[in-house]
């Protein structure tokens, strides 16, 4: 999945411009960004729900921006999308919601549909609630049901819009593990849009950050997690001091005043990435990533390089 020079505006207001990145196949990527930087808009542009003015989004050879509607509809079947609050159909029960893509796109028998749906329901921990209507369950459950529906067609690309919002920390941790396990099982390319630091620190192979109408950076997780770029550092530290203000940007005077008064950000500890649950196969994406990242090692800044070498080093040894 390749994104090239994507630019989107609403009327006079430019959301972001010239976003270029490649989501490596089978790997998990996270797009960070303060609220209101167009993360959701970015996600919707990838699936062709919104049309950016410039640039291309290539998915399996189809340009999701400029291709005819028919091709876009075909390509969308490769996607599983989890929307911010689930986007379940209010008139259908959870079971029917999750079965919807199967009934729509496959000719499976009802018994088989039932088996697949219950499997997914179990996966997201909603057993017992599958006969309820979306209006009768909590926001977190709606989200998980939305994820189950996104997974039911075994998509090759999974997009998650803020999987954590409305979930407690424990459920967020379970969800993070679920996403990694999924990736191990079906080797899907995943993009998670979030501003949750726990997810950002433990789930992805690659990270990017949107700020001030630009893709600040996109690369291996170590590159962003060790970055000393002010925007990234402030965001990861979750502090007020830095270029991000309440309404997106700060003026220079405030910044200078802060710089005099500010304490340094606390030292960041690079948390290890989550591994698939015991019993699952190793992630094929992680294998590919290892070669890819090691090949690009000389290009990366020193702290990132050191972190990558540390993470790939076998216990007590070093990568030659």
């Amino acid at each position: 999945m390749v994104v090239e020079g994507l630019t989107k505006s609403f009327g006079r207001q430019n959301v972001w411009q010239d976003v270029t990145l490649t989501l490596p196949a089978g790997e998990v990527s996270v797009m960070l960004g303060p609220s209101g930087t167009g993360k959701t808009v970015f996600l919707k542009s990838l699936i062709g729900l919104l049309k950016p003015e410039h640039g291309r989004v290539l998915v399996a050879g189809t340009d999701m921006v400029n291709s005819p509607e028919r091709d876009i509809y075909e390509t969308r079947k490769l996607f599983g999308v989890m929307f911010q609050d689930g986007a379940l159909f209010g008139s259908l029960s959870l079971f029917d919601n999750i079965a919807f893509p199967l009934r729509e796109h496959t000719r499976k028998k009802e018994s088989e549909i039932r088996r697949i749906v219950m499997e997914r329901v179990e996966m997201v921990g909603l057993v017992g609630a599958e006969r309820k209507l979306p209006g009768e369950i909590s926001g977190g459950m709606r989200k998980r049901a939305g994820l189950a529906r996104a997974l039911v067609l075994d998509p090759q690309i999974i997009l998650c819009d803020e999987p954590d919002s409305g979930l407690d920390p424990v459920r967020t941790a379970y969800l993070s593990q679920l996403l990694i396990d999924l990736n191990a099982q079906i080797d899907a390319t995943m993009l998670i849009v979030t501003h949750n630091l726990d997810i950002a620190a433990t789930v992805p192979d690659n990270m990017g950050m949107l700020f001030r109408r630009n893709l600040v950076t996109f690369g291996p997780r170590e590159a962003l997690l060790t970055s000393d770029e002010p925007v990234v550092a402030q965001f990861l530290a979750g502090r007020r001091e830095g270029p991000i203000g309440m309404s997106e940007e700060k003026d220079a005077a405030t910044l200078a005043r802060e710089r005099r008064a500010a304490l340094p950000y606390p030292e960041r500890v690079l948390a290890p990435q989550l591994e698939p649950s015991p019993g699952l196969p190793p992630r094929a994406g992680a294998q590919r990533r290892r070669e890819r990242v090691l090949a690009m090692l000389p290009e990366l800044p020193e702290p990132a390089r050191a972190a990558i070498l540390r993470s790939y080093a076998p216990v007590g040894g070093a990568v030659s």
Partner: protein
Amino acid sequence: MTVADHRPVPPDPAAAPPPPPVAPPPSRWLAPLRETGRLFALAGTVVRDTFRRPFQLREFIEQFWFVASVTILPAALVSIPFGAVIALQVGSLTEQLGAQSFTGGASVLAVIQQASPLIVALLISGAGGSAICADLGSRTIREELDAMEVMGVSPIQRLVVPRVLATMLVAVLLNGMVSVVGTLGGYFFNVIMQDGTPGAYLAGFSALAQLPDLWISEIKALIFGFLAGVVAAYRGLNPRGGPKGVGDAVNQSVVITFLLLFFVNMVLTAIYLQIVPAKGA
């Protein structure tokens, strides 16, 4: 993946990147024209998708039943006094002119050609269209329609087409009912209240009215049903910002439909009177 993608942007927080050249925003004066164009585009898509398999029979029946159930009773209740008013008005006019024997014909023409399709239009857009608009609008802001599109299912084919067809069918059937009830109301008031002669009232029907009058009435109802459905769907699919936007959209859809229907009615009536010669002329 190319290596260049990983190079971080030089840290330079002070200098915000210049906004890219954005095309000048489209003129506000052209906005109504643009909206009209998109409305027509939706109408075209609805017509095209009507013939696309699989037809959503279940949704169609549900919507048909819903629209019919909210419109039948009000339509009947409105058409009785409407037929009566026309009968009384025409009755007193013909009495002044000394043409009482044509009271029946004149009032039945007025009811079938004008009153009935308009009553149907008002009820379909006011009761059925507003509900359709609110339903689609709330689904749009809950991202249900986005989700549907992402799953490769066209919301127009799946949701809008059955609704538009349902409003069209209900409009045609309702028009028949309103014509009958309105005519009966007119008969009752003319014969009972104004001491008209039942035989003369009924004979007037065939003296002035003819079969094409019935056709144009049903054609009007069909077109009004289509317009009401498409306008309601259009506003419902494009609400502006949040739940408040849905309320505004419903409001606008009813007003727009009213304006549109009265205008279309005028055009259709003018065309009909031109191409179909009046009886006996």
